[in-house]
């Protein structure tokens, strides 16, 4: 992981505090480019592979219904929120998992603030 990405992830963790569970920047082939977790049982390889399939199928559904490009997918479970947001040209997406206690609006605003910085720091 390059130092800028490491620095961004640290900033994100600091901003989210105890609400942070895990984050990964994942290319659309299902491989994680960089990431970090605060929970033991988070398997980045497996999660990246499966959420990439979610994003690909989401894109198909949106295309079928003529709803435009996919911006973001948000999964809510009884204990967590999982945001998946396309970055830059859509070849990479950002997965961010937080506690359910996290405020949805705040996380989204935080993602708005960081997404360009992340895209700029990713290797192209």
């Amino acid at each position, binding site marked *: 992981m390059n130092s800028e990405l490491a620095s961004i992830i640290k900033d994100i963790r600091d901003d989210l505090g105890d609400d942070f*569970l895990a984050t990964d920047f994942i290319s659309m082939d299902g491989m994680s480019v960089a990431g970090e977790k605060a929970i033991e049982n988070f398997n980045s390889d497996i999660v990246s592979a499966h959420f990439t*399939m979610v994003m690909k199928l989401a894109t*198909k*559904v949106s295309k079928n219904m003529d709803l435009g*490009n996919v911006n973001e997918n948000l999964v809510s479970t009884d204990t967590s929120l*999982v945001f998946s947001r396309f970055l830059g040209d859509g070849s990479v997406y950002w997965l961010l*998992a937080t506690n359910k206690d996290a405020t949805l*609006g705040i996380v989204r605003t935080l993602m708005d603030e960081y997404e360009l910085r992340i895209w700029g720091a990713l290797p192209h």
Partner: protein
Amino acid sequence: MKGQLQDMAVADIIQHNCQDRKTARVSIKNSGQKAQLFFKNGNVVHATSDGLEGEQVIFHVMHWETGSFDLKSDVEPPAFTITRSWTSLLLEGARLLDEADSGDEVDKYISTLLSGSNKNGKAVSSPHLTTRLHQTINAPVESRVTVNGEAPGDRSTEELLVDLADQTEGFITAAVATLKGDKYYVHSTWDLDVTPLINQVNQFVKMVNVAVEKLGQGELEDNLLTTEEAFVLVRFLKKSDYYLMITVDKKQANLGSLRMLSRSYAEWLGKALDHQSKDKEQV
């Protein structure tokens, strides 16, 4: 520009003006209350409402879900009472709203809203506002949603989908389907090729289920897909193989309202489907 808060939330209005680096005045009305927000080169710099001014007004109006707004460009602010960045302002407003939603924090929230001082430095108090906020924030989710003014009763799945369409701002499509794709009900304002669409949505929902399982962080409650044009919300019906999918126009939709409606209708649709299957068994 004029509009309704149901179509564009206060937070969205602030974001829109700031990102467009506008100098403007936005007048907002809500149930007899009025507020004015002033923007200068893409920052919120001043706000007033019934004797209040500054940040408190922003936190106050962020709670307004209904009413109207009127934007006039190139109006200079008469004063500068807000120095915080607009992103920080929205974050703090969202945090206060979130705390208020936890119930125990209602009093804290209201006192925060009302703790501002007016121009003369006197504490501002509004019993009417306090009562209204208490009533709104403490109301159970279901009581904030009405179905044509009456309880859902014994309505069929089809009737409930039509009701849902009537209740949902920017409604496009609602579908109730099994993951197998063998049974589904669809109500849509668009001409859709339903069978292939349901098959594709089924694949998507199945994969969300698998991904959540692999994630190991709780049971799936709902999935919200945001595209350029729409929100697509999927929620499983309780004790049922069915899920509910609602698609709405992003420009017209109110996301908070959509999620509340989906919770209520998922419950009612689950009951309706349960009744229908029991009726079939009896036949």
